[in-house]
């Protein structure tokens, strides 16, 4: 196979497409964690988003309703998590794990009748430019709207956290809920909002998989991407831009090693399959070495239950 320049363009385009669900889910979870809430239910919320998006598409034949519906289903399932952890003060870790197990089971049940139904083609933008410009065409154009949104999201998230008042409030709540509460901030409300936002983004990430990336419903189709997204947030030390870098590296090496397997490199397949995980961790650890910055970005109260004095 010749590695000509237009092939590299197409390759980069496909790498971008494969990293979208990671960027979406991790950006959502990042906001949740920045408010001090550790939601391990990312995988569960994604798979629920995937099935509800696909089911709505089949039922209504309307992609817009499907996308919005998948986000709503993410919100609803994260509301369960929010109610348990914020109102009933349950342990974040246990509740999140339960959410994932619940999500996987529920989606399999709901999805029974949707297995094998072909998906619908999702509209892509600027498809003419994709073909006409070599190299840059397949990178910049011919993607779904969700992809463009996903690539803007880390920058928006960064702006939100660093520059807006609301972002400051979210960081303050994650740093010290007790102080925030004493300053008159409604900690529980802020955390609920962050949890629901995280749910919406995970739902969207799931819908991207079942409506756009591989447009069909397959049981357990998120295949651990939720856990990767969770790990990305931590290894990116809660920095949205580093989440983007990590997601691209992970997506990139996943695609590249598939090509290497196809070409028949004399490297054990198992090692190639493990490569994306290894490289992502190594790169993120290397770019996140500044211990001072880690300390400043880490939500100090992450995973701790906040109880308001009465």
């Amino acid at each position, binding site marked *: 196979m010749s590695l000509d320049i237009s092939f590299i363009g197409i390759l980069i385009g496909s790498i971008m497409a494969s990293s979208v669900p990671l960027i979406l889910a991790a950006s959502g979870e990042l906001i949740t964690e920045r408010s001090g809430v550790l939601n391990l239910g990312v995988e569960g919320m994604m798979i629920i988003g995937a099935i509800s998006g696909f089911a709505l598409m089949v039922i209504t034949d309307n992609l817009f309703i499907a996308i919005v519906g998948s986000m709503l289903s993410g919100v609803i399932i994260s509301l369960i998590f929010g109610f348990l952890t914020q109102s009933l003060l349950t342990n974040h870790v246990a509740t999140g794990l339960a959410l994932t197990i619940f999500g996987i089971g529920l989606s399999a049940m709901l999805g029974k009748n949707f297995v094998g139904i072909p998906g619908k083609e999702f509209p892509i933008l600027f498809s003419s430019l994709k073909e006409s410009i070599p190299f840059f065409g397949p990178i910049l154009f011919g993607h779904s709207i969700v992809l463009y949104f996903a690539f803007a999201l880390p920058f928006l998230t960064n702006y939100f956290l660093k520059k807006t008042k609301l972002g400051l409030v979210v960081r303050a709540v994650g740093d010290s809920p007790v*102080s925030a*509460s004493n300053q*008159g901030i409604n900690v529980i409300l802020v955390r609920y909002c962050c949890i629901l936002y995280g749910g919406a983004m995970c739902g969207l990430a799931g819908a991207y998989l079942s409506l756009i990336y591989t447009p069909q419903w397959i049981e357990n189709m998120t295949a651990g991407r939720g856990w990767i997204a969770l790990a990305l947030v931590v290894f990116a030390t809660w920095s949205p831009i580093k989440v983007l870098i990590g997601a691209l590296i992970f997506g990139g090496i996943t695609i590249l090693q598939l090509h290497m397997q196809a070409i028949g490199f004399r490297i054990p397949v198992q090692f190639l399959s493990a490569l994306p995980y290894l490289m992502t961790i190594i790169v993120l650890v290397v770019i996140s070495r500044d211990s001072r910055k880690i300390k400043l*970005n*880490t939500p*100090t109260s992450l995973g701790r239950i906040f109880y308001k004095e009465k």
Partner: protein
Amino acid sequence: MATDLRISNISKIYPGCIANDNVSLQFKSGKIYALLGENGAGKSTLVKILSGVVSPDNGEVFLNEKNLKLSSPLDAKKNKIGMVFQHFNLFETLSVFENLSIDATEDNKSLRVRINEILKKYNFSIDLDVPVLNLSAGQKQKVEIIRCLLRSPKVLIMDEPTSVLTEQETEELFISLKKFCDEGILIIYITHKLKEVLSLCDEVAVMRKGKVVSVSQTQNERVETLANKMVGQKLAKIKKKINISKNKDEIFKVKHLNFYSDDPFETNLVNLNFSVKKGECLGIAGISGNGQNELFQILSGEIITPDTSIIFRNKEIAKLNPKQRREYLMAFSPEDRISQAAVPELKIYENVALNNFKSSNFFEKGLVNERKIKEHSKKILSDFSVNTDNVELKSQFLSGGNLQKLILGRELITAPELLICYNPTWGLDVGAINYIHETLIKINDQEKSTILISTDTEELLKLSDRIAVIYKGKLSKIMPSEEVTPEKLGILMGGGSID
């Protein structure tokens, strides 16, 4: 405009404890009021009620005869009641400016101008763009005060503000508070430090067990009268008979103790040599941060320094770890009770088991002998009059004084030959301090030795047989305590010379 704050019949009951029992008090601007009481007397609860963090079961608060509904911290803010908490309410990872802007209603530009005006007016120097976690305790407190001042408060409540400050910072704070008072801000100063009340405040209300027991002018009070009101009984005066004798054996001898560190937050120690005799208390004075931390850690075996010789009971122990040193009958009481001496999340008996000395039989064949540990813990609780007999209680629910009693009890149960303690009465109230001091004197009476590293000169003069001063990692010559005066100590602690 004059401010008048009146608290009327406030009660707050927690399960198993009456925190405030029908408290009524009146404050007027132009004066600094002290609210004095031991730990657990109900001061903090009252303050939390005034700042809207906790709502009372009963009673009312009036500001200029207006009945205030304080159901959230926002209400307190709206009514111009500012509050500086004992444990700072700051966001450590956010910058100073972000901390101040979080509840501001104006835009960042004009806020910055106003903050700079305040900084200038009161001579505070704080970099607004560094994260709060880089600030010293004194600076953090200033940030809290600025936060209150930004809202032009009528009432400013300070909850035990000096417990984390150095002497220098305390002086600066007092100057600022007097300025605020002159500007017409009503100041309520909560403390258990008697001297501060007398030097700063005009009027003092004493609380005990949730009740106000006395309100008086500070000019009519002395340290002793206030202490007696606070504790509710006459405190026995502790006096130690000096216990120095040339013939006694040296039980502990340190030679060539040197410590070098690259960490800018640690102090290097330069050639420390000293010895302790049987039944003696060696006091080591100094302003905190002059090497006491490092010295304590080296003596306890947490840090092993090369080329140092430590002889204890005729054995070289310089290379032994803390556990091994304990087996030679040394015992340690570190400065930070919560993070170094005990694990707050563990139950009392579990903390006792942490000091798993050789003859304890706390663990048998790898299994925990719970019955034995509990028995042993009960004995400590009663021998050292800790105010609970429930060994299942989590240690974090003990007050500072009771936790310190528990730790001392745990350390002393092995009948150690040498106890090394670092600021054993830091942050404790008078009653607990008295008890700890009596205990330390008793140890010496039983011909056991102590090394007392402390920043409290009064405590050192009361308990030590000989005293040395540590300054920038160097030890002064060791003096018999009858030759030492507070003035001499002060000069040496400041780096001066007395010869």
